[in-house]
């Protein structure tokens, strides 16, 4: 399989995870499709019933697994199929973007847009804009960062392992465990 983060010529290209609500933005993306509008292929769309269903854990999880950007699309204010969902997303977004800035993630990597079912053109514009912006920022590369951070631990574990090898053969000083094993979002 080819590496999805590589463009055909082998260079890096952004991976953007998009959470689109079923009623407005996903339908708009469909409309963009049937209207033969072309937008950059850097987004991976995940359809949810409502932008209010976007748990901030999904966003952090996407970043930590290698997304360079996260785009959330919901219905315009007053148009939410579930009345309140998009407001919930907006409130979460306001604090989350501040918190992400405190954690060193650039503001342009997280974007919230209201796109109605009729706005196929807006899907195209937003996706292309975001792709350009993230290309300029470069990769976020969390999985690579985690590996880099843990290098210092792995070195010592090998060292202790070696020095203790004479006394022991069952030492299991492990490389840091993959914390993803226990992921559960409820």
């Amino acid at each position: 399989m080819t590496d999805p983060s590589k463009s055909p010529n082998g260079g890096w290209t952004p991976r953007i995870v998009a959470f689109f609500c079923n009623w407005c933005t996903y339908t708009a993306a469909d409309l963009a499709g049937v209207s033969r509008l072309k937008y950059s292929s850097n987004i991976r769309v995940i359809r949810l019933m409502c932008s209010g269903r976007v748990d901030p854990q999904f966003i952090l999880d996407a970043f930590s697994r290698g997304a360079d950007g996260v785009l959330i699309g919901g219905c315009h204010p007053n148009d939410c199929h579930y009345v309140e969902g998009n407001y919930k997303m907006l409130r979460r977004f306001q604090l989350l973007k501040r918190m992400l800035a405190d954690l060193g993630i650039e503001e342009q990597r997280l974007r919230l847009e209201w796109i109605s079912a009729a706005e196929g053109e807006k899907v195209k514009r937003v996706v292309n804009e975001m792709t350009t912006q993230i290309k300029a920022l470069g990769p976020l590369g969390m999985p690579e960062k985690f590996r880099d951070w843990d290098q210092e631990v792995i070195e010592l574990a090998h060292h202790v392992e070696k020095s203790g090898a004479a006394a022991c053969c069952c030492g299991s000083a492990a490389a840091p465990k993959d914390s993803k094993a226990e992921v559960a979002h409820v």
Partner: protein
Amino acid sequence: MSKPKVAFYWCASCGGCEETVVDLAEDILGVVEKVDIVLWPVAMDFKYKDIESMPDRSIVATLLNGAIRTSEQEEMAVLLRRKSQYLIAYGACAHLGGIPALANQFSREQILKFNYEDCPGMVNERKTRPQLHFEENGCSPHLPEFRNVVRTLDQVVDVDFYIPGCPPTPNLTKAAFDALLSGKLPPKGSVLAPDSALCDECDRKKTKPSDIAFLEFKRPHQALFDPEKCFLAQGVVCMGPATRSGCGAVCTSGNMPCTGCFGPTSRVRDQGAKILSSLCANIGPRDEEGINKVLEGIPDPVGTFYRYGLAKSLLRRKVNLPTSGNGH
């Protein structure tokens, strides 16, 4: 038959967890009667080589508290893992990173510079900093290395069980000992505490509103709190809904909101994201300006939501800090 061997060790911690072992009070006699304590640096004298010379897996259980920040702590964690049948992360720091993990918002250089040059009261004209090796009176001592990243115990070695809390309460500690000594242990990887939210055991639950619209957030020093009413109903950030129970709601009984030291329940991966989600969804205003006005009451979301859990959070650390391998 010889008594089962137990070890206590501390890494990046404040000593509060050690205090809890002492807080077992007379119950500690029952524990001491049944086990041999083979290592407990805070209370008894042992040397590194004593541990090294023990056969592997000869310690039944090691309760290790504190986060892992230095190469010496790592080395002890690896060594104790090898010598123990069960390695238990004891307390919030070993479990989630704890308060020391808040340092994951700063680089190693920022921390060393502040502590050895800039902090108030520091007189260090030659800007001396600890060195890994140095010569003194013909000796060449070796000091542990200060790592770039603060880690939980399970980010360094395999961990069997977790006892949560800052510090863990004596009743949880006692229950863990009872389980260990009777061999009635839950599946590996379990947190030895109930798997429900703190609200479940909080006396204020009956006043927890089913529908709430925050118009402001007040911090503990900004108001006098009603001792009976749910903190959320009083507009106070309480981590209770996103935090595991088992402490007996000691903070909320003492009229202080929960700060989240027990970490999340098993169904939540990232405690900070979850409480952010819950609190924000229930803000009153619908427009950006109004929402941000309410959110001014949470000036430091990382410090508030990840007070004990930054190392274990999905991002673990401020993402743009330098990490040049061993950084020296």
